[in-house]
């Protein structure tokens, strides 16, 4: 019998990949390619959506050929994506009208102050689950529409289309200018600040106050549904799941039940807790988001602690500082010393997300002395990711009845043993990695495969979860406390640095 597979298309912040999985959820083939990051100004981050689509067009056939698989052997495709990144394109030419504004971009910090004059922040949070932050799509879309007066008219006429990366890819995969499907899923829509969490539809009041024409919005669909069949680059593959990357990895970790959580270490790091069909509200700085929705069923929600910068800081050490030749070498460099030498790096490149939501905070290095070497800096870089996630984990523990007893992790950075040990030390629970670090893609494949009947039920997927590695807390509690206190001070300094200056007696 011919082997059959499920494909996942994972369009991430720094790279896109296409993966094939077999019936046991095992990786069969992987094709991956990076795209360019554009930083035209301080705080701005852009992608070229056309470049990303051209890459995806090459990856899908490459993944098939790596596995020696024919298109008809692929029973379903799940699409998962970097969330919030905002694309606006011309329906007739298929070309973006502006560079895609990436989720990390902070250009909307000023815009946010005046954005929702008719609705207060509490109402927006109540309806969308999101605080007013540069992170989300709605303000980015508004910024693009404001950037060129002609765009709004074209958008109102329905000539321009808006989408996050899922929408852009599905539109292109299903024919593009030639009848492409203009849709998004509930998880991605829940990141726009334009969707009501309860009704799962675009909220007219939010659209009005954000100044977004309804004509340009995609239709919101469940995450798991028979959506369409691909026409490009490989025709005939059913698309049966579309789901944001962090929600996908929650699914890939088989965290199907309320109370189950995961933490992904990628460009940023993201702790998500499944709260079932209940819309849980955070009192400690977490976001409420849709976890997934099966067609015809109620949506499942999650609490999320989003940290903007994790792997991005390591990449910055490579690309901008030339401190290392590859991201993995940060661990080698960090291992040349025993501790951080008193040095703390607060990577507030995109302000600070959860739990503090300080859009104007800027990055700092605290505790510099002549003693500090690049090894100490490398250690501080890795500890920054662990310390930020420990903040988010504490916020989550305060929000829920049952604190986390262990942390399921995934993402490329789980290859970093030093980081994983630091996470165990600072969160103070065992850290467990499953036998598939690419859980984002696995989750998209699981979601797609379930809809297509490739897997009979979720129990089968649960049984495919295996522990690949485990790290236990080893840090002395007093030392841990000391690090957490210093880190907290460093974060306060980063926030203060971003705030308007107060008068100084040393000037004038």
């Amino acid at each position: 019998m011919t082997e059959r597979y499920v494909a996942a298309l994972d369009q991430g912040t720094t790279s896109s990949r296409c993966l094939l999985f077999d019936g046991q959820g095992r990786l069969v083939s992987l094709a991956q390619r990076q795209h360019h990051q554009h930083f035209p100004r301080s705080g701005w981050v852009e992608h070229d959506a056309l470049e990303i689509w051209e890459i995806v067009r090459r990856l899908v056939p490459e993944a098939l050929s790596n596995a020696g698989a024919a298109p008809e052997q692929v029973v379903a495709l799940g699409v998962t994506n970097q969330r919030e990144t905002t694309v606006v394109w011309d329906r007739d030419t298929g070309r973006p009208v502006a560079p895609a504004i990436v989720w990390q971009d902070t250009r909307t910090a000023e815009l946010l102050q005046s954005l929702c004059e008719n609705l207060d922040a509490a109402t927006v949070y109540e309806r969308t689950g999101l605080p007013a932050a540069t992170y989300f799509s709605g303000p980015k879309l508004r910024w693009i529409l404001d950037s060129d007066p002609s765009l709004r008219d074209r958008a109102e006429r329905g000539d321009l289309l808006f989408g996050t990366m899922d929408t852009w890819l599905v539109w292109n995969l299903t024919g593009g200018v030639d009848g492409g499907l203009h849709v998004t899923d509930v998880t991605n829509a829940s990141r726009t600040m334009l969707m009501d969490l309860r009704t799962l539809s675009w909220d007219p009041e939010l659209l009005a106050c954000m100044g977004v024409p309804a004509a340009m919005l995609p239709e919101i669909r469940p995450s798991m549904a028979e959506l369409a069949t691909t026409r490009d680059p490989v025709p005939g593959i059913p698309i049966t799941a579309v789901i944001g990357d962090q929600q996908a990895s929650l699914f890939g970790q088989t965290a199907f039940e309320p109370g189950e959580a995961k933490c992904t270490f990628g460009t940023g790091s993201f702790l998500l807790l499944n709260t079932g069909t209940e819309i849980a509200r955070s009192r400690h700085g977490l976001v409420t988001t849709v976890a997934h929705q099966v067609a015809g069923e109620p949506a499942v929600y999650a609490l999320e602690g989003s940290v903007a910068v994790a792997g991005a800081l390591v990449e910055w050490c490579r690309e901008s500082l030339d401190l290392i030749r590859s991201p993995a070498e940060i661990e080698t460099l960090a291992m040349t010393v025993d501790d951080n030498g008193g040095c703390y790096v607060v990577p507030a490149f995109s302000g600070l997300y959860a739990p503090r939501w300080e859009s104007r905070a800027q990055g700092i290095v605290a505790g510099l002395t002549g003693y500090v070497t690049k090894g100490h800096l490398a250690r501080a870089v890795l500890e920054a990711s662990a310390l930020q996630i420990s903040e988010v984990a504490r916020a989550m523990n305060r929000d829920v009845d049952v604190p986390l007893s262990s942390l399921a992790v995934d993402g490329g950075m789980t290859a970093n043993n030093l980081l994983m040990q630091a996470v165990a030390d600072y969160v103070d629970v065992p850290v467990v990695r499953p036998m598939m670090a690419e859980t984002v893609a696995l989750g998209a494949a699981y979601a797609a495969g379930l809809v297509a009947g490739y897997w009979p039920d979720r129990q089968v997927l649960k049984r495919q979860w295996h522990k690949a590695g485990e790290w236990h807390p080893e840090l002395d509690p007093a030392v841990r406390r000391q690090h957490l206190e210093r880190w907290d001070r460093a974060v306060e300094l980063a926030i203060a640095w971003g705030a308007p200056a107060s008068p100084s007696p040393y000037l004038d």
Partner: protein
Amino acid sequence: MPGSVQSVERAAAIVRLLAAESEPLALAQVAGALGLAKPTAHGLLRTLCEVEFVDRDENGRYRVGRDLLQLGSTQLDVNELRSRAINWTDALAARTGEAARVAMFRDGEAVVAHHVFRVGAGHQTLETGKAVPLHATALGKVLTAFDPGAARAALDRPLEGLTYRTVTDRSTLVRELADVRDAGYATAVEESAPGVAGIAAPVRDRGGYVVAAIGIGGPVDSLCDARGRPRSRLAEDVLWAARAISREFGHGRS
């Protein structure tokens, strides 16, 4: 990649191999280490001598040219290896149900660079950073068979008997290493510990240089058939993972 010339890649691999060695290598060692036919290796070495990238000593052995040595040699970073191997090591562990490990030769030892737990087994501890015997494990034998430095480290000291099945005789081991090169993978059955077996294969870089070994280890009953021989299906899985990781390093790409 357009315009990539195979003989240049191979020549680069030879230079890297020689640069990693403290002692000169014979033609057969170079050919064996890189999986090249002897005439091919000879032609490349002769050219490399002409351009003074390689020196040939009075015994006809080759070493890297003195000028080139000053450029230094860049060894593969152990953490880089882990990050490139992680997906395929996971897949190998999931396919076979056995513990999977990636090892590289470092400072005279075979060091575990990455370890994935055995499916469903009870408490397990990560062995990353620990050394495994070069002569008595499948991982160690792969490195010893393909890396002259590892071969010297393994064969220049007494072969310690760890079980009654450990190969402690030098010439027996040397013969077995030749078989490993022919087969393309290594096995070890109860040679490092009673009841434990392993299967491992080489990870090659773009030029064919063996940078690491990947393998599975587990109970003899799971890894071997009724006659005590490693199951061929498992060996195929190990070779599949080794090829996939080698591809990450550019090996076998046109």
